[in-house]
C-alpha cells in the first residue's frame, strides 16, 4: 500500500483499506428514469434530437445512397470519410456515393491525418437514446474516433431498432459490453456560449449533424 492510500485510509479513520464495503445506494428508477419502453421511441427520438439541433430525416436502406448523395451534392461536400459496417455494405453506400462523383473513402483506408482534410464524416452509430435525442458512437478499428469529430459535417445513420429509451439503458449496455473502447454520446452540433453568452455553432467539432433514420 502506498503512502498516498495510507493517508486516505487514515483520513477515514482506519489503518487498512477495507476489502469489502457496503453496496452503493440503490438507483431508484422511479426517480431516475425519464423514459420507459412503453413510449414510441422513434417519435420521441425524433422530437428530442430535433430539439438538440440535429437535422433528422426518415429514410430507408434502399434510398440511403440517394438521400445522403443529394444532401452532400447540394452542399458541395465532396471528400468523405466513411465508417466500415454491415449496414453500409448492405446499402452499397461507398460505391453509390463514388458513382455520384463524390470522393468517399473508408476510415480504414484514409486514417487520422487525412481526415482533417475531408468535408464530411458518414458514420453508423452504436445506439441512440430517445430520452435526450443523442447519438452514441463507439470507437473501433473500423470506426475511428475522428470520423464523427474532425470533419465540419457529420452524417449519422441510425436504425430504428438501435434506439433505446433512457440513459439508464445506455449505462446497462455499456456495462454488458465489458470493454468499452471509446464511447461518445453526441447531443447536437459542437457549440459554445463562452463569448458573452452568444451561442455560436461549430467550434471544434462538426457544426452540422444530419441523422438519417432507417
Amino acid at each position, binding site marked *: 500500500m502506498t503512502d498516498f492510500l495510507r493517508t486516505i485510509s487514515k483520513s477515514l479513520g482506519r489503518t487498512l483499506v477495507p476489502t469489502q464495503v*457496503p453496496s452503493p445506494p440503490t438507483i431508484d428508477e422511479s426517480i431516475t428514469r425519464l423514459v420507459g419502453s412503453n413510449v414510441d421511441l422513434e417519435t420521441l427520438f425524433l422530437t428530442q434530437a430535433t430539439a438538440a439541433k440535429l437535422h433528422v430525416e426518415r429514410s430507408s436502406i434502399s434510398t440511403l445512397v440517394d438521400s445522403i448523395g443529394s444532401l452532400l451534392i447540394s452542399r458541395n461536400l465532396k471528400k468523405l470519410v466513411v465508417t466500415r459496417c454491415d449496414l453500409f455494405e448492405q446499402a452499397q453506400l461507398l460505391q453509390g456515393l463514388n458513382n455520384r462523383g463524390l470522393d468517399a473513402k473508408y476510415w480504414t483506408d484514409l486514417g487520422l491525418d487525412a481526415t482533417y482534410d475531408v468535408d464530411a464524416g458518414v458514420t453508423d452509430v452504436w445506439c441512440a437514446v430517445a430520452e435526450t435525442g443523442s447519438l452514441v458512437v463507439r470507437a473501433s478499428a473500423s470506426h475511428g474516433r475522428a470520423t464523427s469529430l474532425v470533419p465540419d459535417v457529420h452524417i449519422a445513420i441510425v436504425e430504428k431498432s438501435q434506439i433505446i429509451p*433512457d440513459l439508464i439503458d445506455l449505462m446497462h449496455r455499456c456495462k454488458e459490453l465489458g470493454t468499452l473502447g471509446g464511447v461518445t454520446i453526441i447531443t447536437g452540433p*459542437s457549440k459554445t456560449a463562452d*463569448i*458573452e453568452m452568444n451561442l455560436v455553432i461549430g467550434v471544434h467539432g462538426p457544426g452540422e449533424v444530419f441523422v438519417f433514420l432507417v
Partner: protein
Amino acid sequence: MTAQLIDKPSRSLPVLPAADFDFDKVSVAAASNSRLKAAVNNGVVRQDRGRVAKLAELPDSDALRSLAGDIKQHTLDYLDYYLVQLKASVELRGGHVHFAKTADDATQLILKIASDANVKSIIKSKSMVSEEIELAHSFEKAGFDVVETDLGEFIVQIDHDKPSHLVTPIIHKDLASIAELFSKYFGTPYNDDPNFLTKQARVYLRAKFRQADMGMTGGNFIVAQTGEICVVENEGNARQSVTSPRVLVSLIGIEKLVPRLDDLSVMLKLLARSATGQAMTVYTSLFTGPRPQGDTDGPEEFHLVLMDNGRSEILASEEYRETLRCIRCGACLNACPIYRSIGGHAYGSVYPGPIGALVTPLMQGLAHFSDLPKASSLCGACYDACPVKINIPKHLISLRRDMVNQNITGRFEQGVYRLWSRMLLSPGLYRTNLKLQKAMRFIAKKGFIRWTPPPASGWTKVRDIPQPAKQTFGEWWKKNR
C-alpha cells in the same frame, strides 16, 4: 482569415503571482464595476433560470439530488477502497495510474510523462484541477508548446488572465474586450462578431490538434468498477485531446470517483441541467486506457493522475467531508447574490462563489482565506441549487466558528460579539440599543449609513447599513395590534 494565423507560435506566458488577497478591497472594487457586473449577471442569471426550468423536467428532482449526494457521499466514505478498485480497473485496460499527493507532485509527474514520451506540443482541454495547480504555466516554463483549447480558456491564456467561473471561465469579459484581444493577438482588423472570433480560434486550434503529441483532460467522473473517465463538454476540444495525440494524460481530483457505470445516469441527468440548463451537454465521452489493438486513432499511451492536494484533509473531517461531493457545475455561483455582485476573481481562488468560499479555506488554510467564509449572506440559494446537496451555508457558519476557536477572529471582534449577545439576552439593554440605532438615522445619507466612527468604521468601510426606521416594530405593534 489568413494562413499565417495558423503558424503563429503561441506566446510564452508569464507565471502569475499567487493571489495577493484582500477580499475587502477586491470585492468593493468589483461591486462598483458596472461593466463587470453587467457581463456576469447577463450570463449567470440566464444559466440559473435554465437550471430551474430543466430540473423541472425530472420526475422528482429533489429526490434525484438526494440520490446523487448519497452516491458521492458513499464513495467518499469508502474512497480508499474505490481508489484501489479504480487503479486495478485502469491497469487492466493497459493504462498507468499515478497518485500525486501535492500540486507539485502532480506537476512533476506530468512533466516527466511528457518528457519521457518525447512530447513537444500539448493540447489541453478545460479542467479546474489543472487551474488549481496552474499546470499550463509549468508546461510553458519547461519549454513545451501548450495550448488551452476550450474557447474560454484559450482567451484566458492569450490574455494572461484567470478564469472567473467554474463552467464559463470568461463570464467577466465582454465582447468588445475579446474582440480587441483577438485583433491584437492575431494581428487582424477589429471584428466583434462572435461567429468570426470563434472561427478564428477554430482555425488556429485545429492546426494544433492535428500536430499535438500529447492531449490533456480533466474528468467530471471516474468509474471505479470499470475505469472509465467521463468528460462532458460542448465544443469538442476534449474529444480532440483523446483522439489525435499519441499520449493522453487525465489529471483528476480524488473526489471525482463514483462506484458504477450506472451512477453516471444519475449524475449526467443532473450535471448539465444544473450547470448550463441543458438536458445533456453536446459531447459526453467515456474512455480509458490506450486504444485497443487495431484502432488507428486514440492514444497509444494513457496516464491517469489522481491528485490529493489537500483533499484528504477535508476527507478527515466528518463534518466537512460532504463538501467533496461537489461536481463543479457552478449552480451555486449562478444562484448567489454575492457572486452576481462581485464576479469570480474577487474570491482570490480558482474555486469562486459559495463552494469556493468553502473549499478554498479548507484546502489552503483558513488563516489565509479568513474573509471568504464571510463572503456570504447565508441566504441559502446555493444549498437549494446544489445537485449533490452540499449544505454550504451551514458549513460557512461552521468555518466562522472554527475561526473563533482558532483565534483567527481577533480578540476585539470576539469581545464585541460577546457584548452583543449579552445585549440580545437582556430586554433593557436591547431597548437601549434600539434607541441608539434610531439615533443613527441622522448620520444616514440617501437611505444608507455609509460611515461610522471608529471602532465600527472597519465594518462600514465595506458595508452600507440601511437607514433605521423611524419606528421600531415594537412601537408599531403597541399602536396597531
